[in-house]
């Protein structure tokens, strides 16, 4: 793709290109038919998969200790159990509260975090469950749905006293740039939370971003920097559909047009973007896509202009792809936000690190995070460690380079919401460095 010619000089600036391999097949639902099944199959598959992984790790770490099922626990015998963690939380909203508590006129203030000091953990495998005690496991760090191996012994009161815990750990990683040799810098722009159509978004700011990235603005130096951008990933929440219009009654023609306006505006901008360079768009919590994870790609009919270009890719949420031998994996933020409601950490990056160490993108699915009831697989199990792991729609930008025990190196990125911060994240795929790209219109406003 060639960028626009600069007016004064006649030399071209060519945009760099990178080999893209989309790896979203595991998140696509395709022709799955829902037959009324429940979530037990998902949990069974998850436990089975992790049991396989953990058994090899257990052999290495505790070669002399026996493993047993939960029902086979004997009093005082030191052993290892493998199962799914369940966190008993008294503040967790439950549909049964409607019946047990009196209805109040105004709802009790919804806490953003449902934790309570009295929460405790239970380990469950296919034979039974046992309550976990001990200081090693802090209930504030764990959530329902994590599979782990625990070493300890059963106490006389029937609870399992935990001495140490073994998580699956970071999965194996392919070497960086395998098959490609990268000498120059190539950048990828990650942006999320555009919220086109909402009161918070500034259309000028978004237009500035599109102009900068496509090389339409700036002097030669800026344009040469923009020419090194190979791809743009839009990680969710690109539109703000006016929910007030969807009050339940059938919409008249005028309302239908008003509802579709934000999408049309987004499509115009995406057409400009797609004409210049490859773009991936992922659905987010507020986008017109399905609610439960994995969210299916936004339909092409929403983007009548942009979908005409073959550089436009509508992706699933979570999204996984390979760019010049660099593995990317990321979501629009629902998994990390859900962890934030049911556990505690200093930063969002800690949650991201935990999901990698647990080898599972969304352990709280299907307990508190909507999820499709798969019968034959759990697509959120992370098989290969990504090189860049991103999470969209966060309050602020944060990044960290995580190193694994077997030489894995992962760049964790929290993408800030663009409508609130005006920032996008730029990652250099040659050396996994990243920096923030902020566009501001404040000096222009008189």
């Amino acid at each position, binding site marked *: 793709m060639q960028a626009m010619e600069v007016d004064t000089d006649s030399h071209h600036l060519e945009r760099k290109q990178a080999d893209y391999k989309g790896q979203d097949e595991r998140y696509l639902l395709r022709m799955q038919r829902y*037959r*009324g*099944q429940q979530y*037990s*199959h998902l949990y069974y598959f998850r436990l089975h998969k992790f049991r396989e992984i953990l058994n090899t790790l257990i052999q290495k770490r505790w070669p002399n200790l026996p493993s047993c099922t939960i029902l086979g626990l004997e009093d005082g015998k030191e052993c290892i159990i493998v199962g799914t963690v369940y966190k008993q939380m008294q503040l967790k909203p439950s549909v049964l509260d409607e019946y047990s508590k009196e209805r109040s006129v105004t709802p009790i203030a919804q806490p953003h975090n449902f934790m309570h000091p009295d929460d405790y953990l239970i380990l469950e495998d296919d034979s039974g469950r046992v309550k976990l005690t001990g200081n090693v496991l802090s209930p504030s760090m764990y959530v329902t749905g994590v599979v782990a191996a625990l070493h300890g012994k059963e106490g006389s009161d029937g609870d399992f006293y935990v001495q140490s815990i073994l998580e699956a750990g970071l999965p194996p990683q392919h070497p960086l740039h395998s098959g490609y040799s990268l000498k120059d810098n190539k950048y990828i722009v990650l942006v999320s939370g555009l919220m086109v159509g909402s009161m918070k978004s500034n259309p000028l700011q978004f237009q500035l971003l599109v102009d900068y990235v496509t090389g339409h603005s700036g002097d030669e130096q800026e344009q040469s920097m923009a020419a090194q951008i190979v791809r743009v990933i839009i990680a969710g929440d690109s539109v703000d559909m006016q929910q007030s219009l969807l009050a339940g009654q059938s919409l008249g023609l005028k309302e239908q047009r008003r509802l579709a306006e934000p999408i049309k505006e987004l499509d115009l901008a995406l057409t400009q973007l797609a004409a210049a360079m490859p773009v991936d768009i992922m659905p987010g919590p507020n986008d017109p896509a399905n609610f439960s994870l994995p969210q299916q790609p936004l339909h092409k009919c929403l983007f009548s202009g942009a979908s005409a270009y073959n550089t436009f890719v509508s992706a699933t949420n979570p999204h996984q792809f390979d760019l010049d031998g660099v593995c990317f994996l990321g979501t629009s933020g629902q998994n990390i936000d859900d962890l934030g409601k049911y556990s505690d950490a200093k930063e969002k990056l800690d949650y991201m690190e935990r999901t990698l160490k647990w080898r599972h993108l969304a352990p709280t699915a299907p307990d508190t995070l909507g999820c499709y009831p798969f*019968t*034959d697989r759990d697509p959120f199990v992370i098989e290969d460690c990504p090189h860049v792991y991103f999470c969209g729609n966060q309050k602020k930008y944060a990044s960290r380079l995580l190193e694994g025990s077997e030489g894995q190196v992962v760049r964790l990125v929290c993408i800030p919401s663009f409508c609130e911060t005006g920032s996008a994240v730029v990652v250099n795929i040659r050396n996994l460095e990243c920096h923030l790209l902020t566009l501001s219109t404040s000096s222009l406003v008189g």
Partner: protein
Amino acid sequence: MAPRRNTGIKEFYAQKKNTPPVKSKDRTPATKRQIDTVPAAYDDARPSTGTLGSDSAQPAALIAKGRRDYNDDIDNMEEVLRQFDMNMKYGPCIGVPRLERWERASKLGLDPPQQVKVFLERAGGISDCLWEGRV
């Protein structure tokens, strides 16, 4: 003139039902519940399963809450399929057809019995699991 029938209370209660006894060939739970009026706990006349002289091959595990399966068509094939359903090693059985569950177990390397697959594919075994429609 037709003979006048006595319409006293006795005659009312002497009326017999004229519906033929239901021979349930089908396995829907609705018809089962109609016939099963006598809880098995009171049924002392029949010896319990496994004892000498018992005519029921149904294992105790399947008599939940005292309901007996009056359909003696539970042949060997269905018995084997039910044992496959109940085996915890292959995961939950509700919500998936039996063949799909077998394929899943096979893909996970659990080595399910080949006989079950033969029954489901060729011998006309029922594709829905034991609890289908009942839970």
